[in-house]
């Protein structure tokens, strides 16, 4: 399978990971087996990492989670730079994402999920802020999500076209 088709395959799976190999095969004009093989290879190469569902938790009643983005300033260490502390932060299960940032007044951006604001606060004050390399933290709670992973969560465009047109 050429690289253009491989990219198309990845786009299709990103849009709907439940699409079957047979259906993708029809759409890309390739035999089902070729698609199955390509997916297996992409999984083995860790290009396809996971097949998650994008849930709009705002719509789930009594959703017990709060999300926060924490700006973390750290002191980099000789030889390992920011990597060591970043990897350590990654290991906490409540941490959903960690990014090394440029151009900001902080170094790491940590995305966190907790059941309550108190839980997040406890994590920051007792786990994150107390790490050796961490100099300071600034916690921002997410109040509402409008767009996530390229998907607008609330304002989905509906098909407003007439049923039959020229």
């Amino acid at each position, binding site marked *: 399978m050429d690289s253009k088709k491989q990219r*198309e395959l990845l*786009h*299709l799976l990103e849009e*709907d990971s439940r*699409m079957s190999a047979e*259906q993708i095969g*029809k*759409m*890309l*004009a390739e035999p089902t087996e070729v698609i199955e093989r390509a997916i297996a290879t992409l999984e083995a190469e860790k290009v396809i990492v996971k097949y998650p569902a994008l849930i709009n938790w705002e719509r789930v009643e009594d959703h017990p989670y709060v999300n926060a983005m924490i700006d973390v300033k750290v002191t980099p260490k000789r030889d390992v730079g920011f990597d060591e502390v970043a990897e350590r932060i990654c290991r906490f299960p409540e941490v959903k994402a960690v990014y090394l940032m440029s151009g900001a007044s902080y170094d790491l951006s940590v995305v966190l999920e907790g059941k309550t604001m108190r839980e997040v606060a406890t994590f920051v004050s007792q786990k994150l802020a107390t790490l050796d390399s961490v100099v300071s933290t600034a916690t921002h709670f997410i109040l509402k999500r409008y767009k996530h992973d390229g998907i607008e969560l609330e304002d989905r*465009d509906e*098909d407003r*076209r*007439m*049923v*039959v*047109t*020229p």
Partner: protein
Amino acid sequence: MSMQLSVKSRLSSTVASLKPSGIRRFFDLAASMEGVISLGVGEPDFVTPWRMREASISSLERGHTAYTSNAGMPQLRVEIQKYLEERFSVSYHPENEILVTVGASEAIDIALRAILDPGDEVLVVEPCYVSYEPVIRLAGGVPVFLKTTMENQFKLTPEELETHITPRTKAIIFCYPNNPTGGTMTADEWKTLLPIIEKHDLLVISDEIYAELTYGRMHDSIAALPGMKDRTILISGFSKAFAMTGWRLGYVCATPDLLAGMLKIHQYTMLCAPTMAQMAALEALRHGRSDMERMIESYRQRRNFVVDGFRQIGLSCHEPDGAFYAFPSIASTGLSSSEFAEKLLMEEKVAVVPGDVFGESGNGHIRCSYATSMEQLKKALDRMESLMGKLS
């Protein structure tokens, strides 16, 4: 005593004699039903990309609400010139060979009105867009239909063209990539027609509204072939490639003498195309390429899916190289296009357009637009399979 006025007597005989659109009848029927899956829609399922919408909003905020020049904003015409040259190797001068219109529909109308005298014949390649025949008649012309068939991938052949030319033939009009069949023509296929077009000194009205929607190869414009620019009126617009149907923005390109004639009609009727739509079109041409490519990729994938689906359920279907329509044959069911479409709508709640509304040679086919979500396409194919089961 009140006086009864006959509506018919107050209309011109030409207008009174026009048949209502066959599509309209289906629209009324489908619109009255609930839970209908529609493959009857002749427009993109994408909303106009945000960058074009934003450009238009921004132009309104800056107060761009006045008329533009009759022929369209000069900078838009320059962008159209660059675009046509880059994409299709056709070159028109932005000052006197390009006119921005209210949709490609207006362009078709003014092109015909500019060239036709009463009784002039216009060859129409069938199956064809539903407006060609009435617009030719409204311009005083007489349509003469040229047939294409699925066996021939809906391409126009030299034999079919030559057979229908008479001393009154003034022009030929066609749309490639084609609505409703999705058929296309290659440069080599166009070349077989050129000697006949030249011999009979025909004008060519080439409706290229689907030019960007080709799969596997670039669109070949007849205007790009040697000697053809001078006798071709090229029509296109933003509706299909950029998902801008409601903006009503198109353009027509022709030699200065022909364009001057069309400009007269345009300035006395439309004056100019809407300013805010022109601003959006400018943005589309300057920065909308990636949006367009994303949509085309999606159409191609869905085309592959539905064509395979039709064949699986026993409907023979030519693989369309362009536009976003499949035109499967339903001849094997023994039903006419209208009977099949009506049965499909009433029994399975799937709306398609009967092929015969696009001309006699469309009979035995249905037009299915695949510009709809994969989920809807899957459901529609399942329902069609169910109908085929009942008919067998």
